[in-house]
């Protein structure tokens, strides 16, 4: 019952199969389980459906699985950063289902929490509502959306203990906590592995029950998509800055 595996390949051993649905955490390149994504590529599994907010960029994250044509379908909210994506989509090789970002997040949360469907204002009167039930509650219209549940989820956390309890860091949290709850098997890559009891139990973001397998990736390469900075002499103001 040891949850800790020595590397990403062994953590995924026997789990990845052709045609399965996989959730992958991250927003842009922030908080993506890149080592596990590479191991999925190495598994050679094909016809995969990925549920992930973005599709990586060319050559990074899910972009790697586009290169090898292992992805048949993406369920995402924004894929604008990826040229190969556009190309495969336009050629009909790749299927795409857009979800509003909040609807996607909530569908995943619902899937993990045993809620098969819920109503949201988001998308009423838009293409997103087409073919879906629209119902009025207290005089306002809402669309019914379905929960999402995957075969496996791969997530990235900052810290994890041997029980599988996870802590995320800053905005690298994003989709990871919900995805950890919404698959038959969740595999987490963690930057820091500690013994059970080391993390304050009030500060655990994902309880260990959701994490079946863990792999320690001590020094992951973290990429920045938009490196924006300000000059030292600039007076700081909330949210202000200039692009370089």
């Amino acid at each position, binding site marked *: 019952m040891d949850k800790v595996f020595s590397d990403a390949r062994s953590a995924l051993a026997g789990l990845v199969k052709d045609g399965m649905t996989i959730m992958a955490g991250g*927003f*842009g*390149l*922030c*908080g993506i389980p890149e080592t596990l994504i590479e191991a999925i590529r190495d598994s050679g599994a094909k016809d995969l459906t990925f549920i992930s907010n973005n599709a990586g960029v060319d050559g990074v994250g899910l972009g790697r699985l586009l290169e090898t044509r292992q992805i048949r379908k993406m369920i995402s*909210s*924004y*894929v*604008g950063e990826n040229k190969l994506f556009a190309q495969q*989509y*336009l050629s009909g090789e790749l299927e795409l289902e*857009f979800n*509003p*970002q*909040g*609807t*996607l*997040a*909530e569908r*995943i*949360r619902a899937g993990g929490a045993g809620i098969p469907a819920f109503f*949201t*204002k*988001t*998308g*009423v*009167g*838009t*293409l*997103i509502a087409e073919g879906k039930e629209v119902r009025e509650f207290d005089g306002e219209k809402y669309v019914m959306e379905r929960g999402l549940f995957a075969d496996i989820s791969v997530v990235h956390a900052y810290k994890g203990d041997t029980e599988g309890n996870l802590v*995320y*860091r*800053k*905005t*690298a*949290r*994003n*989709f*990871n*906590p*919900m995805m950890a709850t919404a698959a038959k098997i969740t595999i987490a890559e963690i930057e820091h592995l500690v013994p059970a009891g080391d993390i304050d139990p009030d500060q655990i*973001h994902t309880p260990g029950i959701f994490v079946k397998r863990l792999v320690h990736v001590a020094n992951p390469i*973290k*990429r*920045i*998509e*938009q*490196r*924006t*900075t*300000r*000059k*030292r002499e600039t007076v*700081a*103001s*909330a*949210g*202000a*800055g200039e*692009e370089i």
Partner: protein
Amino acid sequence: MAWTREQMAARAAKELRDGFYVNLGIGIPTLVSNFIPAGMRVQLQSENGMLGMGPFPFEGEEDPDLINAGKQTITELPTTSYFSSADSFGMIRGGHIDLSILGAMQVAQNGDLANWMIPGKMVKGMGGAMDLVAGVKRVVVVMEHTAKDDPKLLKACNLPLTGQGVVDLVITDLGVFTIDKKGGTGMTLIELADGVTAEEIKAKTDADFKVALGSKQSNAA
């Protein structure tokens, strides 16, 4: 003279109130943060899971784990909190954000907004825009008045909608319009950019609108 991007952002900043929690879209809306009046407490939300967004980092201090919804490196403040995307959009959908300022391709006189796709072109996705316009208490659009001489303020949007009846205020380079998104009083021109006339605006606008310059409507929260 039409307003510059900075002037449009400065005008949008007048919609801020002390204690507001605000979500700013990319482009001109991002500039609004430069015009928050001194002493006013405004917290910026970034829909990827952060409240209390700080300025861009000093060079060399970028943190790949700390980005905004435009994927730009940012910093944290003493007020900052982080949370998941589900909690972030719960905050948005639940009406807890006071104000969203964002760009648009088209706005209709009934408050419809289109800003996410052009049929026939490769679609990048709506990201969090549909959630923001549907969920945030008050939606302010900041955009150029026309796109290559084509009006963007229309009787009805002809691009696929981001939201239906969602816009409260439109700030263009030529002026400011209120919209009664519940129907009722429709669209009203309430301010002109310096040197711009209502007639000029009329000529560049497809939407029907009333003129009530000097009205205080834009202050209605």
